[in-house]
């Protein structure tokens, strides 16, 4: 067949390929512009895309606020569910999200979907008087408004946002004193960790929250925005990707080597991560022997669902990080820390 013949037939460019390319380009652009999903780690926990931190704890909507304590609460946001239980309103929770695992009582509540698949009909049948939703669930809020059900939009943010949200939520739940006690105790715990590491050398730290099993391909790391970044810094680490103003990024091998982390902390959900698997995956790092963290044995893998939830347990995460980054400081200085 001659070249001209081929030429003629090539003119019919395959529309399926074109669509795929256009689709992928659009996807990439979306991922780049919205800063990708609100960090992979939080996404794992069902946390939603990040929004504007200024709009933390938006005003309740729907039915006019009567000033009464809500008695039938639905939370579609795991970190908010934890806040509600921690301030003592757990008995009023009548439904939770599909990603809620803590506290253990949530296992007895109906699961009503999450960010992308809230089950509106089941929500209605539970007759809630307050539904806690993600800031990006505008459609759901509109539908709740139409059904005269009050809603409270949650936005992700940095570490400060945890206690800010608790206080705002406390006002909405008519439990300002409980909320204040909870927020103050979290702040005190965080302060204790901060003080324990004050003045110590800050190891360069990479916080990794996703990669292909059995290899270092497809590494995702926490970058300079978000509560995980704030926790690393508070725990006395210097986030090696802290200068990149994103919540997460895919890290190439070159970038990882060039940033020379002294410590690597890799966090995973607990499901499927047995101690044997953690040990095997820890050894995967040995392919990069010049990485200071590998050379000095400071690569840590943690499998704990709490690590990706910006809720009342953040001080515990800070302490876990700080104990890895500064084990000596904790051995001698803070016997009161558990």
């Amino acid at each position, binding site marked *: *067949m*001659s*070249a001209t*013949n*081929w*030429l003629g*037939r*090539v*003119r*019919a460019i*395959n529309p399926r*390929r074109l669509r*795929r*390319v256009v689709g*992928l*380009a659009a*996807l*990439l652009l979306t*991922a780049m512009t919205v800063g*990708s*999903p609100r960090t*992979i*780690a939080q*996404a*794992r926990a*069902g946390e939603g895309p990040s929004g504007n931190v200024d709009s933390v704890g938006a005003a309740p909507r729907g039915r006019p606020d009567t000033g009464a304590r809500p008695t039938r609460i639905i939370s579609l946001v795991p970190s908010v569910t934890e806040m509600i239980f921690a301030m003592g309103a757990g008995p009023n929770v009548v439904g939770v999200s599909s*990603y809620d695992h803590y506290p253990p009582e949530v296992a007895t509540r109906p699961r009503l979907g999450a*960010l992308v698949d809230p089950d509106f009909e089941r929500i209605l049948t539970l007759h809630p008087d307050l539904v806690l939703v993600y800031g990006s669930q505008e459609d759901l809020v509109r539908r709740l408004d139409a059904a005269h059900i009050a809603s409270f939009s949650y936005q992700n943010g940095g570490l400060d946002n945890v206690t800010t949200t608790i206080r705002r939520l406390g006002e909405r739940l008519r439990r300002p004193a409980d909320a204040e006690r909870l927020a103050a105790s979290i702040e005190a715990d965080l302060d204790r960790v901060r003080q324990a590491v004050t003045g110590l050398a800050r190891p360069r730290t990479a916080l990794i*929250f*996703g990669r*292909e*099993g*059995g*290899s*270092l*391909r*497809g590494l*995702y790391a926490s970058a300079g925005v978000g509560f995980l970044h704030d926790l690393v810094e508070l725990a006395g680490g210097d986030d090696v990707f802290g200068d*990149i103003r994103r919540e997460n*990024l*895919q890290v*190439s*091998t*070159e*970038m990882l*080597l*060039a940033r*020379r982390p002294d410590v690597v902390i890799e966090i995973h959900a607990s*499901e*499927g*991560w047995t101690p044997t*698997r953690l040990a095997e995956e820890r050894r995967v790092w040995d*392919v*990069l*022997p*010049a*990485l200071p963290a590998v*050379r000095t044995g400071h690569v840590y893998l943690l499998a704990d669902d709490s690590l990706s939830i910006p809720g009342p347990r953040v001080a515990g995460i800070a302490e876990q990080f700080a104990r890895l980054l500064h084990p000596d400081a904790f051995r001698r200085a803070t016997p009161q820390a558990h």
Partner: protein
Amino acid sequence: MTARSPLTRGIPVVLLCFALMVAAIVFAPFIGSTDISFGAVFSRRIPFADNIDAQIFFLARLPRALAAALVGGTLAAAGAVFQGLLRNPLAEPYTLGISAGASLGAMVAITFGAMLPTGGVATAGLAGAGLAVLVVYALANARHRGLSTTVLLLSGVTLNAFFWALILLVQYSSDFAETYRALRWLMGDLDVVGYSSIVTALPLIVIAFVAFAWLARPLNLLSLGAEAAGARGLNVARAQRVAFFSGSIATAGAVSIGGPIGFVGIIVPHLIRLVVGADHRLVLPASACFGAAFLVACDVVARTVAAPLDLPVGIITALAGGPFFLWLLLRRR
């Protein structure tokens, strides 16, 4: 003075493509998002285990350049083989469902890897591709003596759709983090971190290329049509089987290294044909060499243009290669 044959006239093009490939592989590791000291890279005084510059060069950049060359060359040559086998200019390495099978395997490993012993994303991808190859072959062979290219094409396209439905099902049942990582895998990624995935796929690719070398003349005869090729003494059924299996295992190997990187496998063979004509003795080696050089160059762009971020290379191949090919296509008319 006698006119030179098209074959003789094409040889310089093949040599040029080969030179481009070598130049791309040699120079690519010297370009990157980080400033490294090349004195330190090649210094024997610093032990490798302590030498970050050498590790960036030899563990991050060089394997990437080699992976890009291997994947690009393999996809381009496999594309030429499938276009010849199916006698269809729109055929490519992904037409027969092999990449969809590999993608399904990879999706399962990414989503359920923590629970199932899938043996890693690359291995699961190879297993998925193998499954797809066997199913397509069994279908195309079922009611014919020898392969029916029409049945091959239709069953491949159907299997593609079927596997994509399963991929969507797996993605639907996974959480955000896994879905995002799976989508990212589908965009193609050559950051292979060392040489193990290259070494795993290399035997498959070497076997495929040996078959490709044998296939050049049979594919030329097949382009006349199966009957005409048979009349000229070609064992058509055997040639088709060799083309199908070699193209398939080449595709499986390439996808297991870099994911389903698009564009290279369909456009590079056409681009080469625009220059050297349709003789597979020229098209196959030139496509392999140019595909290799092209993907190495695209990967250099992917890892530097938005540094420190890495763009998915599959986006660069189409964004950079598409306009170039269209320009060539229109200029030639």
